[in-house]
């Protein structure tokens, strides 16, 4: 079977690099074609990379708390750029402070994200979900 391509990176002015490095490594190990943009990635860079590599999903990390501001509008920009139904996943510590996750989830789904993940999400969960979303068994 052909490898699925995933664009990953840490959005905005966020420099938390550890989780990104490990996530990229694990996705690679799990058989994905990983395009890792590293930290401090703008919405534009995510989209450009996804187009260029014909990606199957964009996996956005945000750790530092500004995730809500930084992710706002990403779906719209994807649509404009012709990435109409591309799965958008977000995870990390995506909002400021310890908040009720179901509320956070609602806000991100409303912003057009396919799925959002709370702090401490295991790599196994991420991979399993990606497999499901991309129809890999």
């Amino acid at each position, binding site marked *: 079977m052909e490898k699925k391509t995933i664009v990953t990176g840490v959005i*905005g*002015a*966020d*420099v938390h*690099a*550890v989780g990104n*490095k*490990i996530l990229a*490594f*694990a996705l690679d190990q799990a058989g994905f074609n990983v395009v890792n943009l*590293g*930290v*401090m990635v703008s919405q534009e860079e995510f989209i450009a990379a996804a187009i260029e590599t014909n990606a199957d999903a964009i996996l956005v990390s945000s750790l*530092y*708390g*500004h995730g*809500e*501001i930084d992710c706002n509008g990403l779906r719209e920009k994807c649509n404009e750029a012709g990435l109409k139904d591309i799965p958008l996943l977000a995870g990390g*510590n995506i*909002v*400021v*402070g*310890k*908040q009720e996750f179901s509320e956070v989830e609602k806000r991100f789904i409303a912003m057009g994200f396919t799925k959002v993940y709370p*702090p*401490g999400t295991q790599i196994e969960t991420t991979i399993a979900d990606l497999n499901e979303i991309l129809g890999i068994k």
Partner: protein
Amino acid sequence: MEVKNIKLSDDKFFAERKEILEHWPTGKGVDFNSAVEYQKSIPQEKRFGDKLQMAKKEGITLIQPRAGVALYDEHIKLLQYLETEGEADLLPTTVDSYTRLNRYTEAQTGIEKSKESGRSMLNGFPIVNYGVDICRTVTSALKSPVQVRHGTPDARLLTEISIAGGFTSYEGGGISYNIPYSKNHSLEKTIAHWQYADRLIGLYEEAGVSINREPFGPLTGTLVAPCISNSVAVIESLLAATQGVKDITVGYGQCGNLIQDVAAIKSLTEVTREYLDKFGFTDVKVTTVFHQWMGGFPQDESKAFAVISWGAAAAVLAKATKVIVKTPHEAMGVPTKEANAAGLRATKQLTSMLKDQSFTNIPAVIMESDIIKQEMKCILDKVEELGKGDYALGTIAAFQAGIIDIPFAPSKFNAGKVMPARDNTGAVRLLEVGNIPFSEDLKVFHRQKLEERAAYEKRTVSFQMVIDDVYAIGKGFLVGRPNSTK
């Protein structure tokens, strides 16, 4: 642009200054002479450096939180709360991430959005946007000394406003606030920017106002071997002292093995002193800061309390001058004031309970400290050599060559060849030495320590160990064992 480790000339500094103060409208509010006057009016018990010296003399460990929110009245309330309910000895003002990247327009949006939504939409306090007067409102509303903590590669305007705003201590450095906090800033630039910040503080010193300066010790906070962060601390101390800084607090982020942690603080103190003296800075004061575990935390709050407490204990047993405190919310997000105060109170219990116990002179600590000193010597000698005696040039060359190499750093100017892993007792060693110029003996030492672990775990030394170690504390362990040997 070439940056040399020499004191900035007044011409150069004041020309640059003119420009800097125009970066954002609040820059106009800075006036050096009235700032000196204002700083002189701050009573001694509210001066950061004085409180540190007192603690050093008494052999006690002060406690300090991290904290900052978008709205200034909320920020004042937060700090007052940490002072009364948290029993904090020293206060912070943690700056938001937009300000750290000089994105003042976005910080302004954050302020507005916070006003609208009623909750802080910024992960810190936007000092530059608020300007001198509001900073004075903040610093004067508190009983304890306040320090600016950030992570800003180009902090020139921030420094101007902060010191004029009445803060008496200032964190950062051209290496420690670049490599772990940035992707594209060159070291030439950030070292130059921090020469500016340090020279400004040197000018305050010359005007009779002493400001405490603290290089950011823990770097990426994740499995940074003591020799690496200690070497950076020594270099930043020299760079700061060259610009006229007279009061330095060098720092270290807890790794988790008690012997190694105490040894790290011991070697850090001794080698920093040695190098400052060697270059004639005998009048520069040195104190230390111990950061409770800076890597991934357990989600569970009770477990987080345990990690916090262990950090508090290690700080005291190492006789660090102060300890930076984590909170039970660490794994989740910016803490509420209650969670922040809870972490402080837990820490206070141990800084006072254990103050009469010291581990700085037990043989195992002395041995480990000697190893760290040897490692630091390998690194620092090479930096000096590469820079032909100039530590600014040497540092830039050293990063290029991977002589200094910070694990997990996001910066493209970091070699990223070094891989750390824990040995069988949890001490952080180097699995991949990269280009760090260790002697053969030291290389063998590191390798042996990791082979010992590999044998115990019945697997080979590999990158999987590194991954396991990154997760370990969050999952309740120090050494990331494979399931079979847990």
